[in-house]
């Protein structure tokens, strides 16, 4: 009887230990994921140009530079930086060329406005032709 009781006690201790280990591991994962997610890293690296590769993003490239950049972004996210802060600091260091999605600035104004302008001109021509026929 005593032996049975001891055995069940041993089992209980083992069970508690297993639960404790599982909780610790999960808590650790939770702590990491709460600061930033892998998806966030991917979103940033997908919008960054690999400066030494031919038409590849940092996310796609396995070059030395791209690997360093991925580590750099992870460390910046761990430090609590936002996506915008990371992009703006990299643009300051490397110029607008580093981002695939350049924001609206004095240099990119024509780039952003030209398609809209052409669309409006094209639309105006079409509308004019239709109304003339009517």
């Amino acid at each position, binding site marked *: 009887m005593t032996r049975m009781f001891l055995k069940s006690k041993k089992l209980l201790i083992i069970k508690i230990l297993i639960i404790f280990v599982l909780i610790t591991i999960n808590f650790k994962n939770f702590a990491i994921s709460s600061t930033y997610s892998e998806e966030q890293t991917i979103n940033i690296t997908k919008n960054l140009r690999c*400066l*030494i590769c031919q038409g590849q993003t940092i996310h796609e490239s396995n070059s*030395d*530079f791209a*690997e*360093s*950049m991925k*580590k*750099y972004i992870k*460390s910046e996210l761990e430090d609590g930086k936002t996506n915008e802060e990371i992009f703006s*600091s990299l643009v*300051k*260091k*490397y*110029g607008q*060329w*580093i981002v695939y999605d350049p924001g609206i600035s004095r240099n990119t104004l024509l780039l952003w406005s030209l398609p809209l302008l052409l669309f409006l001109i094209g639309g105006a021509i079409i509308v004019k032709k239709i109304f003339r026929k009517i």
Partner: protein
Amino acid sequence: MQFLEKTKKSIFSLFILILLILSFFVFKFALDKEKVYSPKITDEQIFTDFEVEDLIDGRKINFSKVLFGKNFYLINIWSSWCEPCKDESDKLLELKKETSIMMVGINYKDKKKNALNFLKLYGDPFDQIFIDKQGTISINFGAYGVPETFLINDHNKVLKKYIGPLNDEDVFEIKKITNN
């Protein structure tokens, strides 16, 4: 009425012609442009602070504390496995003689033993050397390879950036800036 129609047509063909000429020049300049991208120095490029580790004694220090006491700082990113770094070692040794410059080395993705052997073999031009095992310290400077050299003033502003090994002209330019 016919005159109006004719004028409209000629304005339209003139517009198309201007568009074609414009596209020609856009393509011409775009194709003539240097394909190898090199980041430009902007006025805004001032380093944010970060921690660095000394190659020799392993002590950790904030980089802002390194840039102290001199008028100019020459930061050179190098590695023992980098062939062009060997070519520029004599240029760096020459610049070491300039008293207004502090020479700071960033040892990029290297092994300590190999780095020390390199310095023994080609000479040590640096006042301080820090390690960049992951390549992330170099990104703080806006670098993307080895060798790269940055001339910084005492306000932490990047004055010049040299991609690739330094040559005689670069040394002349650095001396000219730092002696003024």
